[in-house]
């Protein structure tokens, strides 16, 4: 079972619908005993980093989440859930979870895109990801596949945690983390077939990891 970490994140039901469609058992929850039993955790998020951190801290959910990560429970952060795994976000000047070293920065509207025009912020729509390291999440996904992005801030983790980059004005990190602790800036639950495949890959990883124990 995958647990969708519950903290009032706007896209939690979209993630649930995608997992239901794939036939992956799942539950939206923040109950410690259920999280403990889950084979993996999806950490969703839309909206602002500051609000997301407030929600997490208000119920001590930040400590629960960190505890799961220290236990090496597989985790997939999505969008704001990806950003606040870092130390800090420029958005609302937010001290974040600090699970992965790095920070989250605002796109600069003076950067220019491939048509030599200033980029629009938010970065909204379908874009490709360029893998810098091998990553189990992308097994069987065509390298040219597009994913759906919508965000104004982008993750800038330390070099060793950069798994993939995406071009928007310049190359930013669109996937970061390490084996079993992944964070994607795009929305796999809204990225059509490649996104669904990525969720399935995550589930397979979780199943293997829990059998290996």
């Amino acid at each position, binding site marked *: 079972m995958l647990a969708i970490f519950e903290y009032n994140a706007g896209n939690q039901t979209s993630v649930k619908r995608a997992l*239901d469609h794939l036939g992956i058992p799942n539950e939206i929850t923040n109950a410690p005993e259920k999280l403990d039993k889950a084979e993996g955790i999806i950490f969703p998020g839309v909206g602002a980093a500051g609000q997301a951190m407030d929600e997490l801290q208000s119920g001590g959910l930040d400590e629960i989440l960190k505890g799961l990560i220290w236990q090496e429970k597989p985790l997939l952060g999505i969008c704001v859930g990806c950003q606040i795994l870092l130390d800090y976000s420029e958005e609302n000047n937010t001290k974040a979870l600090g699970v992965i070293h790095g920070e989250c920065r605002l796109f600069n509207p003076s950067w220019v895109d491939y048509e030599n025009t200033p980029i629009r912020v938010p970065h909204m*729509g379908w874009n490709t990801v360029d893998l810098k390291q091998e990553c189990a999440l992308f097994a069987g996904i065509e390298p*040219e*596949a597009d994913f759906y992005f919508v965000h104004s801030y982008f993750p800038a983790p330390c070099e060793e945690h950069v798994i993939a980059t995406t071009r928007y004005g310049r190359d930013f990190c669109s996937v970061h983390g390490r084996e079993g602790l992944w964070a994607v800036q795009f929305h796999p639950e809204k990225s059509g*077939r490649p996104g669904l495949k990525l969720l399935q890959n995550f589930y397979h990883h979780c199943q293997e990891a829990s059998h290996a124990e």
Partner: protein
Amino acid sequence: MLSKRIIPCLDVRNGKLTKGVKFKGNVDIGDPVETAKKYYEEGADEIVFYDITASAEARGIFLDVVEKVASQIFIPFSVGGGINTVKDMRDVLLAGAEKVSVNSGAVKNPDIISEGATQFGSQCVVLGMDVKRVEKSEKIPSGFEIVIHGGRKYMGIDALEWAKTGEALGAGEICLNSIDADGTKDGYDLELTRLVSEAVHIPVIASGGAGHPSHMVDAVSKGKASAALIASIVHYGEWDIPAIKKYMTNKGVVTRNIW
């Protein structure tokens, strides 16, 4: 590279997909859930649903459609029509839409944009603008005026000013509909599209007038739009989405392939 988006728009009335036909009013042309699924599978980058029913009872039917769509398509979709309050916004977002489009509701009460952006995030809030060409005047210096009620009511607001206001209030995107071009199939109003696209920093979706894929190429190149809304051209099967994207790609536009 960020792709240019192709977005089919589905008008829904009493739970049915409908299309306005000149002199005949609206005729039902299919099931919105099945149609959305078909467009999703063909490679639509997003889908827009517009509730054109006015009654409260029909609203429930519409929200059921939204929920069904949300469990079957895995690309973003937005919902518009009859959004006048933050509660209306919340209802469609809870039913599973990613974005909600405010149009005349925002003209009457601009605060709905900022309230929606604060509560749900700017990425959720699309400002829908219906625009008509008028003579340039002190009040309407661009010669493009905001209208509501399908173009029957002129609001005395310049479209460029309104676009900037909407952006400042927190809209994450603009869906720009030319009432003059709508239904003509002669192409988007490129002048309007370019003016608005250049006036704001958020993405702009061109709407109204699509009759051929060359129109979409123009909208995203000459018009500088990030996306193009389409309706009849696909609803009646003249073109399908893969053929449209192939045409655009051949003209040098970056579009999304489905895999």
